[in-house]
């Protein structure tokens, strides 16, 4: 386990993951301090550029957290989000940033433990990958 504490941005659907994060808090479950939760009206609102912008602004990883398959309030926003995450993973792999720096997670509003586990495991995975390589490149170029 690395001692690097990554910054992980979580785009959390208002109908499930955002509430699940709240539930995690009320249950007293902890997850890494570098996890920053941003509320979105649906995972389907998350444009590919949101993921790219987060990484470009220095995030080490980005997690999109939406409803369980079949449970999206808007029918298929979570599936659209998953397809977009896959597309961005391919692009990040192509440019050498690493496709696994973005990921999709599914949960329901009551699953605080699932949120805490997903955030912790993803954060650990990013910690093992190391910092976003653009930060080191920017230092080299400076």
């Amino acid at each position, binding site marked *: 386990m690395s001692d690097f504490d990554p910054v992980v941005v979580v785009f959390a659907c208002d109908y499930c993951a955002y509430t699940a994060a709240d539930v995690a808090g009320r249950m007293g479950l902890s997850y890494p301090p570098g996890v920053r939760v941003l509320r979105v009206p649906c995972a389907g609102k998350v*444009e*590919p*550029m949101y993921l*790219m*912008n987060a*990484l*470009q602004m220095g995030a080490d990883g980005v997690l999109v957290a939406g409803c369980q398959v079949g449970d999206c309030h808007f029918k298929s926003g979570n599936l659209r989000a998953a397809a977009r995450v896959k597309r961005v993973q391919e*692009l990040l792999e*192509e*440019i*050498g*940033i690493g496709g696994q720096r973005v990921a999709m997670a599914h949960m329901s509003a009551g699953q605080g433990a699932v949120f805490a586990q997903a955030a912790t495991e993803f954060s650990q995975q990013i910690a093992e990958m190391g910092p976003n*390589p*653009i930060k*080191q*490149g*920017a230092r*080299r*170029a400076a």
Partner: protein
Amino acid sequence: MITAQRKPMEEIFQSVERFGKILLLGCNECVTVCHAGGRKEVAMLASALRMGRLKQGSPLAVDELTLERQCDPEYAEELALAIDKYDAVCSMACGCGVQTIAGRYQGLPVLPMVNTTFMGASERQGVWAERCAGCGDCVLGLTGGICPVARCSKRLFNGPCGGSSKGKCEISPEVDCAWQLIWDRLKQLGQTELYTRIMEPKDWRTARDGGPRRIVREDMAI
């Protein structure tokens, strides 16, 4: 519409490796509709280029702009005042747009960021298929509205070849046999006599075989 797909990033990085500041130029027409080179795709590629080059320790300044239409000189003119500050223009338009910009700004490298692919229609969200080959002598009125030039792998004009099986083309089970589609549609229209009519050999001079083509409309010229 004209469809296109982004080039592989490795090819794109190679094409811009000697530049420090580029204009990434999208087009608001066909390539926007097929999600290859509109404003959003310009933003994605710009971000990918910035991050990829930062990772290499060699930052690339990328300005983003999307013209209403890259293949018309009046829109290309919009770049005139700012173009000098760039090492190159990287166009996400089809080949027509790239050539219009390259023709207007001859002292500047203008590079294609997409591969222009075909003239196609949208089958459903996210799926486009070739529908027209621009042969210059349309026969859709004789073939039930299904083009044997664009949709038959062999461009046959008088029925299917021996490779047609269960409505599919021998090149792939994913590809419909155009002549099966034509026959089905002619039956539906009650026009099967068109199927038995022998089509004369096509004069391909109206297509690309006659060399680069132009349309001149004196009544529209200013």
